[in-house]
């Protein structure tokens, strides 16, 4: 029943996304609300979100295929599949953000490897190859040296690609909200948290009931509690450093998050739904052993993460670089007030739907994922 509901939701999401896909592919970028001042919008935030899930899921897959943790034996293939379906979702959203997406090949043929973006594009390409290789090895039950090598390389890449996203933002010295060394250090932890959240959903909702499933969920719940506390600490350090530094642009960025027009998204979705409710709910043993509830909490954490990614991107860009720029010239896409357009939402919903359906179809059609015996063993 749950799976059918998710299939239906995924299909509806894809239908809702058709408008956005058509608009972006055949009309262009005119219907977006980001522009020359708020240069990156919802799609970049969603790229961070999906890339975080992909790299985080891969990290979780190493518990099975690299570190041979008995408790997680059999779950690695699901984690790899999640990584495989969410990585393209990240790449679609970031490709749609390009003014000339038909020229993306230039990043391969004439890259500037000094630029974090070029490093990431090459890194993601290799990362997808590693995921595919690992899945093929898993299908053939080749758990030997080749698998260990693939997973080792993949784990290294997952950590550095996560940190690379932080560097993509952090290298911008002109954005005080981003320009600190902590950002690349924090992002791998964010990815790991996303990975734990998505595996709470996968194991809680898509694996058969068994004693070992309860143990796995309990372990993931404990990990999530710890990671939420770490994340909360990061949030505190980011905000307190900005506020205590007194640098006006940094303070204004934090004020926009905490008290701006969309403060409700921070307090309600990021903090309450994405952190506090999961934190306290998972401390209750009865909840952390309830597979459906654990999966639901995983969804809450991911929603909180989507908002958190947006709160990293938008407010930092909503501060004018120079006083007076806001009124100096008027025209389309020259605005510091950003709210995603209907078309941006449509694409985002569509991509979420596509990746959801891709995951579900995989669990039903890919032989490796249909075998449940090993998972429950």
């Amino acid at each position: 029943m749950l799976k059918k509901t998710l299939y239906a939701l995924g299909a509806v999401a894809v239908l809702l996304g058709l408008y956005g896909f058509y608009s972006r592919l055949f009309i262009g970028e005119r219907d977006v609300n980001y522009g020359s001042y708020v240069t990156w919008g919802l799609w970049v935030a969603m790229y961070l979100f999906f890339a975080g899930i992909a790299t985080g899921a891969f990290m979780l897959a190493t518990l099975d295929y690299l570190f041979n943790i008995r408790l997680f034996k059999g779950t690695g293939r699901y984690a790899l599949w999640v990584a495989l379906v969410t990585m393209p979702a990240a790449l679609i959203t970031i490709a749609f953000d390009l003014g000339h997406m038909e020229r993306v090949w230039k990043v391969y043929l004439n890259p500037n490897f000094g630029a974090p973006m070029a490093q990431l594009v090459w890194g993601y390409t290799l990362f997808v190859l590693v995921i595919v290789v690992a899945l093929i090895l898993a299908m053939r039950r080749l758990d030997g040296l080749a698998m260990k090598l693939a997973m080792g390389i993949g784990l290294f890449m997952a950590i550095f690609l996560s940190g690379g996203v932080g560097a993509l933002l952090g290298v911008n010295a002109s954005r005080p909200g981003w320009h600190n060394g902590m950002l690349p250090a924090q992002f791998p932890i964010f990815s790991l948290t996303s990975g734990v959240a998505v595996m709470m959903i996968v194991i809680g909702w898509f694996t058969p009931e068994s004693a070992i499933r309860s143990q796995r969920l309990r372990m993931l719940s404990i990990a999530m509690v710890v990671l939420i506390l770490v994340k909360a600490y990061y949030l505190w350090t980011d905000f307190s450093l900005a506020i205590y530094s007194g640098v006006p642009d940094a303070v204004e960025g934090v004020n926009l998050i905490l008290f701006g027009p969309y403060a409700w998204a921070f307090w309600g979705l990021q903090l309450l739904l994405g952190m506090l409710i999961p934190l306290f709910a998972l401390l209750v043993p009865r909840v952390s052993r309830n597979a459906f509830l654990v999966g639901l909490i995983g969804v809450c954490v991911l929603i909180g993460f989507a908002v958190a990614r947006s709160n990293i991107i938008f407010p930092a860009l909503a501060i004018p670089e120079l006083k007076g720029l806001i009124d100096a010239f008027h025209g389309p896409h020259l605005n510091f007030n950003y709210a995603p357009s209907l078309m941006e939402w449509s694409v985002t919903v569509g991509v979420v739907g596509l990746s959801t359906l891709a995951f579900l179809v995989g669990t039903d059609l890919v032989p490796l994922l249909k075998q449940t015996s090993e998972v429950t063993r």
Partner: protein
Amino acid sequence: MAPPFTKHPKASEDNGRRNFLRMLVGATGAAAALQVLDALEAAPEQVAESLSQTVANIPQSVTDAGPNADVLIRMQADLARALKKQPGERRWVMVIDLRKCVGCHACTIACVAENKLPPGVVYRPVLEEEIGAYPNVARRFIPRPCMQCERPPCVPVCPVNATYTNEEGIVEVNYNQCIGCRACLTACPYGARTSDFGYTYAEETPSADGLIFGRDRAEAYERAASYEYGQPWSRPPGKHLSPMGNARKCHFCQHRLKQGMLPQCVTTCIGRATLFGDANDPDSVVAQLIKLPNVMRLKEELGTQPRVYYIV
């Protein structure tokens, strides 16, 4: 619904009036531009040849301008001297005398007309700052072209080497290489780059045969080629050709410099507030000005070393 992450209240009625006036100025500029359409319909080679002849025909009295000549004449002479050097020996800088800027926005409009900038793209806005509280109020105007930084943050973040500093120190954009990722826009500390989303001013205006005149010619003018970086860049309808989809920025009117003409914003400035020349030439106007103690550059603390100086 209030837009998110807004820092400023919505534009007041005063702003609305100001915007209307700006639109009026823009419309006047467009009308003037129509008059030059016929001239631009000539082949680019003819235009270039004509401009070269113009430079060659600059009177000796201008190229020999002494220290007491009008500053525009002196800058023209400076330019003529600089163009005789190898490109790598020149160091173009712009000096903006804030004491003389009256905030007329003529430079902004002239730049839009010269480079045929579409809606949403601006190279040289004039920032306005109100200082004090009524009745002790003053206003300050700060024209803001690209700073042509000697250490530009926009260059290293480009994933495809589409933006770079040329041998004369001008930061260029290779439109056909740019993928439109806006990383350079994000990195610029001055907000000096804008993205071209492919609009034209005429496209949203009404059309009525026999009632509205000039609309089609205005759109044809907008879609006809501009000559940034010395190449024709047209905007044919229904096609997504560069510079549409690209990052765009001020380039000190390189295409004019190569023809011996000063940047458009310099020649248009009614107060002689914008000055331009080769800082490597000790006799040039700009070389003498940037030594003054009351000269500053924007956000010097970042170490970007802008080539645009402000006299305050």
